[in-house]
């Protein structure tokens, strides 16, 4: 017994000696050939015991020696590459783990690009090509039975997963295709499938083995962020393999179970993303969620509450997976409860960005689609309470998308939970999002097996609304069947667009008649006609208007829509604007005082703000003719748009400000173009100059004094938002006026006081106000009078740009910051070294 090992050892020592020192090619060749006996697979193979001793004890050392010897001269010792072939075969045919380690080790040990490095790299590539990785991992599956070598495993793991990095570092530009991560990890995925196949085969054969090493490889690869590559290969193959095979399914479950905790999240996220549907996901994961704490946390909390970048298809798979098994179903109810709790909490609503709210809403709707009445019944009260809280704070929001989201989700929930009473019904415009959400809420038919074919869920979900739309259109038949086919060619219809309902012509001809008709007339037609005629009358007779301007403004402000007049709001607003323009000082004084007066509705107050903005815009418009434009003149879009949009809540704010900023940039950019000489607009005095103060200061003075009916700093934050937008717009329109500097100062103070307001709409207004201060107040004055305020504003802007939950706020802050930066660059070009 003692002698046999020494035989092997002696021969190996002899061989090492020969290889390292001999210059005789033939001798080396024969030595290597004789050692090859110990690798088996030949007719003159050594006895089993000797082979085992060789592979466990001496193989690595011998390989190292071989690796170190590699050089062009050495290979030249024997012509026609026979030596090289034999040399390589030791690495490719010997035990894969040791060969792999030695290969990696020696590649690592080579200092720079050289012949040897390239040879080794090529050999490694060949090693990969010949599927030795699978052999390596397979070897580890069997090794489990012996007391393991944790050290070896660790090294192997890091080498296997880190291979692309190491090779990339080593080879730099010479890197081979096989070692690119996208190729390598796909290959690794295929090798994993092969190993699993072997495992399954051996389990069928009654042999026990473990997939623990494979799990660890998988986990580590996923932790390294290579889920897409490796799972992209693995999942489709497993999908087909697990179909109808319990053994495969169990191996899969085991594979995921054995993934170490720290890698569990990466693996699960990747799997849920890659799985084409809940059925497949269930086959791959089994009841892992119930068994594994970490998996439970990832699946029921992390993917739902903490992340929101995933597509809907992933939510569908995840929640569908939870719904598919009776053991997992209670989790779904619990998830729904928690989701609704989050949805209903007002602080979550304030601090979560809109995409996350959408994500949570989608998850809720999918849960509802999966759950049956009985299951919902148990936690009905709780769900209802959360829903009501959520709806309440969403409807309070001043951002339309948030409100709409609240309405849609509430409608669906109430129809599912509260089915004895009438379901909630809101009015909202249908758009892509609402259709998508509603489609999610309809339970999918049971046999929706499209997922099997590997098609993703998205198109399936997307098709549903399209189909319903298509089927809703009635089949259009011939409109009327004409019995005898008369040739109608000669009877071409004339344009009949002028065919309107006849209205009696009772419009008053004079301003005072109009006012009388509006205040006292009981005749609805006369009232309507008066309203229609008023704007024209105001423009036509400015003098008469000035006599009664305040009374007229009062009448219009208190006007209520008595009959259903098309475009009533617009008519009234335009007329009020006309009156304001005709007599700015007095009417503005009246309107601003009424804004803070007692008995007005929020609607009226917001109307006042809109009118002030539009009037200011009209007054400041360069080239405004002395005579106002024709009543009801077309294209109000071009001149009323920015201010109107600025005073409306919602996402339209951002693009308009971008427009404004772009326009400013364009106006500030010097161009050396050879275009045709442009006619400069004729110089006009800015009519807004003399009255800007009347518009601005009364509005900004009293916002912090609450009335019984009107509390700007309290719950009337919608009006406050409008106010901030209006002030910003007025500031912007006051560019080049003398009051701009004091206005800017007052506005900065106003902004400072409100900067931590909870409502995103208010904050948006504040940010746009800052932008308009920066744009309108002369730069010199800004730096001289308000340096501290500017500094403070700058730090606040930076803070908002980084941390604000609302995306529009962040964008606006960023734009304001850019303006600030530009200002600084322009004024202090040399201050910075």
């Amino acid at each position: 017994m003692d002698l046999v090992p020494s035989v092997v050892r002696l021969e190996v020592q002899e061989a090492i000696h020969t290889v390292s020192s001999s210059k005789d090619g033939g001798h080396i060749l024969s030595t290597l050939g004789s050692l090859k006996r110990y690798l088996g697979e030949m007719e003159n193979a050594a006895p089993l015991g000797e082979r085992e001793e060789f592979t466990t004890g001496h193989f690595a050392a011998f390989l190292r020696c071989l690796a170190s010897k590699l050089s062009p001269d050495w290979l030249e010792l024997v012509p026609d590459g026979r030596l090289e072939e034999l040399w390589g075969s030791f690495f490719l045919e010997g035990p894969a783990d040791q060969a792999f380690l030695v290969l990696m080790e020696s590649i690592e040990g080579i200092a720079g690009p050289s012949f040897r490095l390239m040879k080794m790299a090529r050999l490694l590539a060949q090693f990969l090509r010949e599927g030795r990785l699978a052999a390596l991992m397979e070897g580890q599956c069997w090794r489990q039975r012996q007391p393991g070598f944790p050290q070896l495993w660790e090294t192997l793991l890091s080498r296997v997963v880190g291979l692309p990095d190491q090779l990339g570092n080593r080879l730099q530009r010479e890197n081979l295709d096989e070692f690119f991560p996208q190729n390598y990890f796909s290959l690794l995925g295929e090798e994993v499938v092969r190993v699993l196949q072997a495992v399954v085969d051996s389990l069928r054969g009654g042999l026990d083995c473990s997939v623990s090493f494979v799990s660890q490889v998988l986990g580590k690869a996923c932790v390294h962020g290579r889920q897409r590559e490796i799972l992209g290969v693995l999942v489709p193959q497993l999908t087909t393999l697990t179909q109808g095979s319990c053994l495969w399914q169990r191996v899969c479950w085991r594979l995921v179970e054995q993934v170490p905790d720290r890698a569990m999240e990466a693996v699960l996220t990747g799997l849920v993303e890659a799985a084409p549907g809940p059925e497949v996901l269930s086959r791959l994961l089994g009841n892992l969620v119930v068994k594994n704490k970490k998996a439970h946390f990832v699946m029921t909390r992390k993917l739902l509450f903490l992340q929101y970048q995933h597509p809907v298809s992933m939510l569908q798979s995840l929640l569908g997976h939870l719904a598919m098994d009776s053991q997992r179903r209670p989790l779904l109810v619990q998830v729904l409860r928690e989701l609704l709790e989050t949805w209903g909490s007002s602080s979550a609503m304030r601090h979560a960005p809109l995409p996350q709210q959408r994500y949570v809403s989608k998850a809720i709707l999918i849960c509802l689609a999966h759950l049956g009445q009985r299951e919902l019944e148990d936690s009905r009260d709780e769900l209802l309470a959360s829903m009501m809280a959520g709806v309440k704070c969403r409807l309070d929001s001043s951002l339309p998308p948030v409100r709409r989201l609240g309405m849609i989700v509430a409608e669906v929930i109430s129809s599912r939970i509260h089915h004895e009473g009438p379901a909630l019904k809101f009015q909202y415009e249908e758009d892509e999002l609402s259709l998508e959400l509603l489609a999610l809420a309809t339970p999918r038919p049971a046999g929706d097996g499209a997922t099997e074919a590997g098609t993703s869920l998205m198109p399936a979900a997307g098709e549903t609304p399209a189909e319903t739309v298509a089927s809703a259109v009635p089949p259009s038949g011939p409109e009327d069947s004409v019995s005898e086919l008369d040739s109608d060619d000669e009877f071409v219809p004339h344009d009949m667009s002028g065919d309107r309902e006849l209205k009696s012509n009772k419009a008053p001809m004079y301003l005072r008649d109009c006012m009388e008709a509006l205040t006292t007339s009981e005749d609805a037609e006369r009232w309507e006609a008066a309203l229609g005629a008023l704007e024209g009358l105001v423009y036509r007779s400015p003098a008469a208007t000035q006599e009664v301007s305040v009374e007229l403004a009062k009448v219009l402000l208190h006007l209520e829509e008595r009959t259903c007049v098309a475009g009533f709001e617009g008519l009234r607003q335009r007329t009020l604007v006309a009156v304001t323009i005709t007599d700015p000082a007095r009417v503005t004084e009246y309107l601003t005082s009424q804004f803070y007066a007692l008995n007005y509705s929020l609607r009226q107050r917001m109307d006042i703000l809109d009118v002030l903005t539009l009037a200011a815009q009209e007054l400041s418009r360069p080239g405004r003719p002395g005579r106002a434009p024709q009543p009801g003149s077309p294209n109000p879009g071009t001149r009323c748009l920015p201010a109107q949009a600025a005073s409306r809540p919602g996402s339209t704010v951002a693009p308009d400000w971008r427009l404004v900023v772009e326009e400013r940039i364009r106006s500030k950019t010097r161009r050396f173009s050879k275009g045709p000489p442009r006619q400069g607009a004729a110089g006009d005095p800015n009519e807004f100059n003399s009255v800007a103060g009347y518009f601005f200061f009364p509005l900004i003075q009293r916002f912090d004094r609450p009335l019984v009916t009107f509390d700007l700093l309290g719950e009337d934050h919608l009006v406050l938002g409008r106010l901030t937008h209006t002030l910003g717009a007025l500031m912007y329109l006051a560019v080049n006026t003398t009051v701009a500097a004091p206005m800017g100062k007052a506005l900065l103070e106003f902004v400072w006081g409100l900067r931590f307001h909870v409502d995103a709409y208010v904050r948006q207004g504040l940010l746009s106000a800052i932008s308009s201060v920066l744009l309108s107040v002369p730069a010199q004055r800004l730096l001289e009078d308000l340096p501290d305020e500017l500094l403070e504003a700058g730090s606040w802007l930076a803070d908002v740009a980084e941390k604000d939950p609302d995306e529009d706020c962040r964008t606006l802050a960023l734009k304001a910051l850019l303006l600030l930066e530009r200002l600084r660059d322009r004024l202090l070009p040399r201050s910075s070294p």
Partner: protein
Amino acid sequence: MAAPLLLPPPDPQFVLRGTQSPVHALHFREGAQAQGRPLLFSGSQGGLVHIWSLQTRRAVTTLDGHGGQCVIWLQTLPQGHQLLSQGRDLRLCLWDLAEGRNTIVDSVRLESVGFCRSAILAEGQPRWMLAMPGKGTDEIQILEMPSKTSVCTLKLEADAKPGMPMCLGLWQANCSPHPLLLAGYEDGSVALWDVSEQKVCSRIACHEEPVMGLDFDSQKARGVSGSAGKVLAVWSLDGQQALQVHRTHELTNPGVAEVTIRPDRKILATAGWDHCVRVFHWQTMRPLAVLAFHSATVQCVAFARDGLLAAGSKDQRISLWSLYPRT
């Protein structure tokens, strides 16, 4: 819908002014005088009948026979030299216009003070039939002219309560010797009378409001009626002489004073209270044009044989339109 290119709204070919009072009746006399263009008669609220030459576009003569009371109906007899005019002075005058004369040769006393226009059935024979509102509220009287002998009085059964007759139309089917009378009543119903047997063949309620005007196309056995309401009703007559509502057409504004089908039965025109004349394709009832020219209610429309359309309005003007001229 099918035609992508729409013709612009048409303008009147010319306008006749000078009646100095709202126009209530229009009638073309075809070119018996072989002068090419026909004459146009118009009856005004001031009781005058103007005779217009379409050649010179001037009034040729004025007939004053109704004592300042509104003229509501004008009709020439086929011989062409005699004109019937119905006025609200409760007289129906027969004028002799031959050889430049303009004298009243005969007159019939009307018993009804309503607005119902009379109707005649004259096919070249010396004797002709006249239908006019009768003495009782819902009666229609039939006279044989020129002898003025009362043929019969048509009255619905007691419990029908149709109200006053509002418009009348006499015609005779080619195959049958019986003259037939269509009458639109105040309750919105249209009745078909067999005059010789003095019985109602059929009666349908096709409007909610009083029937203001009707016209009948005996070739297609279809007729159309307009009312004070918004709806234009097309009804048809089947073999058993029963009326059926064929279809209805909703108008933009309520009120139709008169409906007339062009003699070639291609189009029809309505005189609207909304100041517009509407033109429809008769076969399909497809709207073809809205003629907006008048500034007050259009009271009457009439077609000449060559397709010229005349509309008379409360704004004292008569507009003439040439639409889809006959080829």
